[in-house]
């Protein structure tokens, strides 16, 4: 009996200690999340909104612009994420080579893009890829092209610019993860492989990549989530144009809230669409990761 009372006292004390954190978390995290869920059922403009039942979901089902934003976003991550992951992996392996000279300088150069401000580098890319920008001038100077490429005025080329921009910005970031993971691979495995006469490319495919699999999975899923939230680059370089060619989900939410007659309920619902997609992708990652544990 006394023991039970002591237990309860300890429990109360424990809860009391974490209460401030819980309250803050509740006010600033959980309450807004629940509010946004409630909000996503509201219809109306600005301050004048009312409960609309499933009206927003109906609107969602017929929203061609949302589909366009979704397909743009998917194109971005299906093309960009693999390119970036492979590049980051190759750079990491190259930099991990102890015989490479000036390793520190290369590592700094590759990581430098990650510390530049998103706005600053976006503005830079925008000016580089403009019609009379450095890129077109250089390509024309080298006689690779006759007329300037419409980088920012054609939906297809604009996508290429965005993909190059985010690849430039985030490759070094992912590379650091691989570099760290490479330190943990036992050198003796490579030694044994070399003694057995395994060529370098096979060592890379059969040893390095499998050993890095958990890190690759981790960076892939995080990059995917990052791409789903892509906003700064498209907002600054193309504003989602030309012709909605680079409109992303986040930018669409922004447009719904700030550029158009504010329709907060509907933008909240579109935000929940992103949450749903991220959740689905996380579940997929969870299953792949579990598979891996079972087989090893």
């Amino acid at each position, binding site marked *: 009996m006394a023991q039970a009372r002591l237990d309860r006292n300890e429990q109360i004390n424990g809860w009391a200690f974490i209460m401030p954190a819980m309250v803050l978390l509740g006010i600033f995290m959980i309450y807004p999340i629940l509010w946004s869920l409630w909000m996503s059922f509201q219809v109306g*403009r*600005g*301050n*004048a909104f009312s409960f609309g039942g499933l009206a927003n979901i109906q*609107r969602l089902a*017929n*929203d*061609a*612009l949302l589909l366009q934003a979704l397909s743009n976003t998917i194109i971005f991550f299906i093309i*960009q*994420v693999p390119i*970036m992951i492979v590049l980051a992996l190759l750079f990491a392996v190259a930099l991990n080579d102890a015989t490479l000279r000036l390793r520190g300088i290369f590592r700094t150069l590759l990581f430098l893009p990650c510390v530049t401000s998103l706005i600053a580098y976006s503005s830079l890319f*925008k000016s580089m*890829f*403009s*019609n*009379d920008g450095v890129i077109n001038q250089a390509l024309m100077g080298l006689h690779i092209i006759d007329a300037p490429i*419409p*980088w*920012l*005025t*054609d*939906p297809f080329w604009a996508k290429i610019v965005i993909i190059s921009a*985010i690849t430039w*910005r*985030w490759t070094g*970031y*992912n590379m650091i993860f691989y570099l760290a993971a490479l330190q943990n691979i036992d050198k003796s495995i490579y030694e044994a492989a070399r003694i057995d006469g395994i060529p370098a490319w096979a060592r890379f495919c059969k040893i390095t990549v499998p050993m890095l699999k958990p890190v690759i999975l981790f*960076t892939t899923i*995080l*990059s995917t*989530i*990052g*791409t789903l*939230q*892509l906003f700064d680059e498209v907002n600054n370089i*193309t*504003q989602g*144009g*030309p*012709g*909605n*060619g680079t409109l992303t989900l986040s930018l669409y939410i922004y*447009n719904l*809230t*700030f*550029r*158009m*007659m*504010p329709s*907060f309920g*509907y933008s909240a619902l579109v935000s929940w669409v992103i949450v749903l997609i991220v959740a689905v992708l996380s579940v997929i990652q969870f299953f792949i990761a579990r598979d891996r544990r079972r087989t090893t």
Partner: protein
Amino acid sequence: MLRTSSRLSRSLALAFAGISLTSVSVAAGELTIWCWDPNFNIAAMADATARYTAANPDTTFAINNVTQDEINQKLQTQLLAGVSDGLPDIVLIQDDNIQRFLQSFPGAFVPLSDSIDMTKFADYKVAAATYEGKSYSLPFDSGVTGLFYRADYLEEAGYTPADVQDITWDRLIEIGKDVLDKTDKQLIGMDFNDDGQIIMMMQSTGSWYLTEGNEPNILDNPALRESLEVFQEMSQAGLLKPVSDWTSYTGSFTSGDVATVPQGVWITGTIKSMPDQAGQWRVAPLPKLNDVEGATHYSNNGGSSWYVLSSSQNQEEAIDFLKTVWAEDVDFYQGILVNQGAVGSLLAAREGDAYKASDDFFSGEPVWQNFSDWLSQVPAVDYGTFTPEARLAVRAQLPNIANGGNIDDALKAIDAQLRQQMQ
């Protein structure tokens, strides 16, 4: 690509920085004003405030340089949250954007027509900010349009200034082709992410993307159809120099790469920023559409007006300031015309000396008199609530149309996107 929560904290920090910047300037008897563009709006406002303070030493002003996007965002967020801390007393808002504020946030702005006689201003400017019978704006600069052109390029191609007076867009395209042939200069710099060009052509007939404010006017809008056709024809003939933002747009004519600039009068300052091009530029009335009923040479692009927020602690002073300087001081309008190239909407200002003077930069043409004559003839349109939605929908189709896409399909796509966004 990986994002962390630092994005959130960064934007919060920015938001706080913005708020603290603006709130430190609030003091007793001081009016805070938000507007953009140091060479234009801010300079004009500074002149106005200096005049008022000279007569009323107790009232001082703090003019903050806030971009148009920021103004829209801050107003929208704060009005929605019902928090007025840090909001200014007077704010500048672009005309085609004001209706959504007036309708989304009833009571947020002071109806100025209660205290100021609105018949003194150009009709179409007042109409843009009228909601439920009351006008909320002190109309400021006009976006009345004209065709700025390089007389020297045209002459090289065999055309005189008389050849571009009161012409149609079709005729301009013919001239443009000749100019391209003979001088290798394209006709117009065009940002495919901006529908300003389309708006100018369409509004010259008195029609708009919407009718009665809320009904899409896309499929049966002959003016819009022909505007898009003209745009397509120019693009297919290689007359448009694609630009990707405002800087490269202004660069297209300050560098001498294009032969004409059809634009609102507020672009004059930028054109005159190249003194070595003096005497090469002239201004003609905007070309008109060929086959559309009600087509005129007069249109509008851009232009904004001043608003007093209801949350202001110094409402009476703010209204008195706008009334005595902006609604009465003809002399003040002469100053901002000469210094900033700002054509105000106060009709009486046209009688001032500066408006009657000719401009040597434009080979002695009475440009200001011309612009103010055109100003009084601009057809009024009802911008309505959903203009931002409509503009985004039109922009989405511009690259496609420029590449020769079917106009019927484009109109259907615009209509569909607009209707979807209006739900």
